[in-house]
C-alpha cells in the first residue's frame, strides 16, 4: 500500500478506534492513540527524501496526495511535536474525564494536519483544513464549562477564514478547471492583476486566521488558553504552522510572492507582500505588548505565539530566500520553544492546578526540571544567544536589512526587546520569588511529562550550536518546491552579504567562559549558606507565612501605563460589539416573521402581485 494513504488511514483509524474501544479502559485508548501516532511517525520517516504521490478521483475532481521536501519539513514538525505531546498526554490526561474524546480529537488533528501538508490539490487541502478546524475545536471546548465562548469564537473565525479561502479556491477552480497546485502554480501568472490581488487577499485571510495575524488573532488567546495544556502546545506549535504552511504555499508555490504584472514594488517587494509584511511586523509588536500584560500563563504564551507567528509571516513576505529561510527556521524554533513552554505550563498546572501567574511563585526547588525547560524556552523565545532562537532572529534581521527595510527592522527589533518582558514575567512569577505556602509540597511531574520537555530542550541547544543541518533541509525545500535559490550555507558559520555569526564560536565561547568562571568561583570560595525564602531584607522585620512578599500582581504596571494607547484598543471587543450589533440587526429583521397569518397571506399575495407587475424579470 502507498505510504501516504497508509499513514492517513492509520491516524484516522486510531482516532476512531481509540474513541470506540476507549470506553473500555484508560490504557487501551491512550495506547491505541499513541501507537497510531508512533507507527505513522515511523512510516513518515520512511518518506524522507522521497517524492511519492497518490492520486485518485473523487466527485470528478482529481485528488492528489504527494510528499515533497516542503511538506516533509512541516510533517516533521507535526510528528515531532505530535509524538511528544502524545507521550506527555499519557500521564497528563490520566484520571481526567473523557480521555477517549481527547485521544480522538488528538489523532484527528494530527491526521488532518498531515493531510494538509500532503495535499497536492486545493480540494483535499480545504477538506483536511476543515477537519483540522473542527477537530481542534473539539479540543478547545474540552473543558466544558468555561470554554464555550472561546470555542465558538475560534470556530466562527476559523470558518470565516476557511470560507474566504474557499472562495479563492473556487475562483481558481472556475478559472483553471482543476484544483491541483501545479496547475495553479503554472497558471497564476496568467491571471489578471486584480484577480491575483483578490486571490492573495482571500487566501491571506484564510491562512491569516489560522496563523493568527492581527487583526484576525482574537480567537487565539482564548482558544490556546482553554484547550488542555498538551494540546495547547500542539495548537500553538504545529496547528498554527498550518497557516504558515499556507502562506508558504501562497507566496512561493502558487506564486503570489511574484505577483506578476504591473504592481508597485517597494524595496523590491510587491505591494501586497509589503503590506503583509507590515501586518506581520505589527502583529509581532502589538501582540508582544499585550502578552506582557497577561496574568494567565497560557494567554501570555498565546499572545506571544501570535507575535512570533508575526515574525514568521514577516519573513515570508520579504519574498527572498533569506527571508524564507528565516521564516522556516523560526517556525521550527517556535514549534520547539512553544512546545517546551506550553508543556511546562501544563506540567505546572498539573501539579498546582492554576495558570494564574499571580497565584504561583517559587516553584523552582519543587520542579527543577520544569524550571530548566522554561529557562531554556524563554532564552530561545527571547532570541538570546547561544540557543537556537538567536539563529532565527538573526536570519530575520539580516533578511530585513538585506532588503533595506529599516522601519520594519526597527519594529521587529522592538518586538523582540519587548518579548524579554513577558519571558521574564513568565519564569519569575512561576518559578522564582516567594512560594505560597500551599505549594510547599508540590512535586516534580512524572518522567513521561519530563522526557518530552527535556528532549525539546536538548533540541534547542543542539540547533543553537549547529543549525546548519536544518538550514540545509530548508534550502532543499526552497530549491525544489518553492522556486527560490537557497541562501549560501557553510557548515560552520551563518553568513550573508551583510554579516556573519559563527554559532559554534558563540556556543564555545559562552560555554568555556561559563565553565571557567563557574569552576573558579566555586573552588575559591566555600559553599554559601542556604537560607530560606523569607530570609530577605525586610528592614529587620521577620515576615510570617501570611505575608505575601511575591511581587507578581500587575507585574509591569508602569509599563502598562506607558503603553495604554495600545491596551485600550482591542480588536476582540470590536468584533464582539460588531457581532452584537449584527445580532441586534438580525433580531429586528426576524420580525419579518410576524407570526400573524394575515401578514403571511399578504406576503403571498404581494409576491404574486410583484411578479405579475415585473414579468419581464422572469423571461
Amino acid at each position, binding site marked *: 500500500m502507498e505510504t501516504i494513504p497508509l499513514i492517513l488511514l492509520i491516524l484516522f483509524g486510531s482516532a476512531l478506534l481509540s474513541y470506540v474501544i476507549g470506553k473500555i479502559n484508560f490504557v487501551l485508548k491512550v495506547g491505541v492513540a499513541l501507537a497510531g501516532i508512533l507507527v505513522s511517525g515511523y512510516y513518515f520517516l520512511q518518506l524522507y527524501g522521497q517524492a511519492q504521490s497518490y492520486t485518485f478521483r473523487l466527485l470528478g475532481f482529481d485528488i492528489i496526495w504527494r510528499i515533497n521536501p516542503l511538506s516533509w519539513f512541516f510533517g516533521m514538525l507535526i510528528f515531532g511535536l505530535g509524538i511528544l505531546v502524545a507521550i506527555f498526554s499519557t500521564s497528563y490526561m490520566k484520571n481526567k474525564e473523557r480521555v477517549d474524546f481527547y485521544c480522538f480529537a488528538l489523532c484527528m488533528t494530527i491526521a488532518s494536519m498531515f493531510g494538509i501538508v500532503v495535499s497536492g490539490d486545493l480540494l483535499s487541502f480545504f477538506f483536511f483544513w476543515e477537519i483540522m478546524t473542527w477537530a481542534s475545536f473539539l479540543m478547545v471546548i474540552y473543558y466544558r464549562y468555561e470554554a464555550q465562548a472561546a470555542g465558538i469564537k475560534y470556530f466562527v473565525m476559523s470558518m470565516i477564514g476557511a470560507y474566504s479561502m474557499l472562495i479563492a479556491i473556487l475562483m481558481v477552480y472556475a478559472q483553471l478547471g482543476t484544483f491541483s497546485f501545479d496547475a495553479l502554480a503554472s497558471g497564476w501568472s496568467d491571471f489578471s492583476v486584480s484577480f491575483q490581488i483578490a486571490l492573495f487577499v482571500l487566501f491571506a485571510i484564510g491562512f491569516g486566521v489560522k496563523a493568527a495575524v492581527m487583526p484576525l488573532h482574537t480567537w487565539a488567546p482564548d482558544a490556546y488558553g482553554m484547550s488542555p495544556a498538551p494540546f495547547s502546545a500542539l495548537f500553538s506549535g504545529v496547528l498554527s504552522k498550518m497557516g504558515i504552511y499556507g502562506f508558504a504555499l501562497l507566496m512561493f508555490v502558487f506564486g503570489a510572492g511574484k505577483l506578476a504584472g504591473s504592481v508597485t514594488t517597494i524595496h523590491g517587494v510587491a505591494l501586497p507582500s509589503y503590506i503583509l509584511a507590515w501586518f506581520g511586523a505589527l502583529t509581532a509588536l502589538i501582540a508582544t505588548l499585550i502578552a506582557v500584560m497577561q496574568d494567565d500563563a497560557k494567554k501570555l504564551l498565546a499572545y506571544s505565539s501570535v507575535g512570533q507567528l508575526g515574525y514568521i509571516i514577516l519573513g515570508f513576505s520579504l519574498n527572498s530566500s533569506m527571508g524564507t529561510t528565516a521564516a522556516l527556521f523560526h517556525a521550527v524554533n517556535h514549534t520547539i520553544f512553544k512546545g517546551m513552554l506550553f508543556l511546562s505550563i501544563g506540567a505546572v498546572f498539573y501539579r498546582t492546578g492554576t495558570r494564574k501567574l499571580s497565584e504561583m511563585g517559587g516553584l523552582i526547588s519543587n520542579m527543577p526540571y520544569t524550571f530548566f525547560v522554561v529557562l531554556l524556552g524563554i532564552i530561545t523565545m527571547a532570541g538570546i544567544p547561544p540557543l537556537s532562537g538567536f539563529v532565527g532572529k538573526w536570519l530575520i534581521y539580516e533578511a530585513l536589512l538585506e532588503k533595506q527595510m529599516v522601519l520594519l527592522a526597527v519594529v521587529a527589533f522592538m518586538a523582540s526587546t519587548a518579548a524579554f518582558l513577558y519571558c521574564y514575567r513568565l519564569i*519569575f512569577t512561576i518559578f522564582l520569588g516567594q512560594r505560597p505556602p500551599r505549594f510547599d509540597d508540590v512535586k516534580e511531574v512524572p518522567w513521561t511529562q519530563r522526557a518530552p520537555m527535556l528532549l525539546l530542550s536538548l533540541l534547542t541547544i543542539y540547533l543553537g550550536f549547529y543549525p546548519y543541518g536544518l538550514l540545509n533541509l530548508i534550502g532543499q525545500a526552497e530549491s525544489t518546491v518553492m522556486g527560490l535559490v537557497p541562501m549560501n550555507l557553510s557548515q560552520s558559520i551563518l553568513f550573508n552579504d551583510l554579516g556573519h555569526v559563527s554559532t559554534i564560536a558563540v556556543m564555545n565561547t559562552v560555554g568555556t567562559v561559563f565553565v571557567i568562571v563557574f569552576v573558579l568561583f566555586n573552588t575559591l570560595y566555600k559553599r554559601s549558606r*542556604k537560607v530560606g525564602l523569607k530570609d530577605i531584607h525586610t528592614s529587620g522585620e521577620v515576615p510570617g507565612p501570611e505575608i505575601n512578599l511575591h511581587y507578581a500582581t500587575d507585574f509591569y504596571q508602569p509599563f502598562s501605563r506607558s503603553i495604554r494607547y495600545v491596551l485600550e484598543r482591542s480588536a476582540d471587543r470590536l468584533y464582539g460589539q460588531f457581532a452584537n450589533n449584527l445580532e441586534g440587526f438580525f433580531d429586528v429583521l426576524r420580525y419579518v416573521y410576524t407570526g400573524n397569518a394575515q401578514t403571511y397571506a399578504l406576503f403571498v399575495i404581494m409576491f404574486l402581485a410583484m411578479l405579475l407587475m415585473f414579468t419581464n424579470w422572469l423571461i
Partner: protein
Amino acid sequence: MDTSFNLWILLMPFVGALVGLTYMGIGRRIIARVQHRYGPPIFQNIVDVLKLYSKKTAITHGVMFHLAPTLAITGTISTLMFLPILTGPHGIYLFSFKGDLILLMYIMVFGCLAMALGAGQSGNPNSAIGVSRGLSQMVGYEAPFVIAMVTLMVQFNTTSVHDIIKAQDSFVHWNMFQSPFAFIAALFAFLGFMGNKPFDVVIAPAEIASGPPSEFGGKYLALMQTNRGMFAFVKLVLYVDLFMGGAANFVSLLAKTFFFYLIPLFVGIVNPRFRTEQAITFFWKWPTVIGLLGFLMVIL
C-alpha cells in the same frame, strides 16, 4: 600574533573590569567635586570590589541565585570576546570576526537576563520590582538604540562592526559627524544603558533598596560589581567602535571611552530621577523622533 591573541583573550576581561571600575571611581570623584566634596580616591571602586571578594560568608537563596553572577559575567565576557577592542594593525580583535552587531546586541542581554533571574530567586520583592522597572525601561531606550543601530547598518549596508569601523577611516568620517541624528539617538539610549541618573529607577537605593542586587552580598556582589565595571567598558567600547571609528591604541581608546563615560555622568549629576513610565515616554518621544530623522537622512 597567536600568543598575543591568546594573551589578550585572557587579559581583556581583567583590563575591561579595571578600566570600567576606575572610570566609576573617577565618576564618583567628579560627582564629589561638583558637590563641593573632596571625593573618594579614584580606585575606590576597585577597593570596594576587593573588599567584597574578601568577605568571608555569603548566603544563597537557591541555584539561580548562586549561578546568576557567574552567568552575568559569562555574558559580559562573551560580549567582550566578540567586540573589536583596538583596531588597526596592532588591533585586539579577539573573536570579533566571528560575530556581528546583531550578535552583540543580543548577547549583551544574556548577562542582564541572568542577573534578573538571580534577582528573581532572591525572593525580595524589591528585586522583582527593580527588574520589572529595568525591563520596562529597557523597552524604552531600546527604541532609539535600535533605530540608531539599524540606521548605521543600513547606511553602510553591513551588520559587521568591522566594516562600520572601516567606513570611519578619518576624523571627519566618524559616525558622530557623519550621521549625527543616529548618534544623538544612540546617546540618549546610552543614558538609559548606563543606568545613571535620571534613569536609575532600577536600582533606586532609597526607594527599593538597590533593587535587583539587594539580596546579593559578599562574593556574589563582588562578581556583580566586577561585571558592572566590565559591562560599562563593553558598552563604551561598542559606542567608540560605532561612532568614533574605534581606537588604534590604548591611549586613544581610553580617551574616547572616557569621553563617552563623561556624558551620562554629567547628565546624571544635574538631573533627578525619572519614574519608569516617564522614562519610557521620554525615550519614545524626542530620541525616537531624532532617530527617525536619521533614517530620513539615510533613506534620502
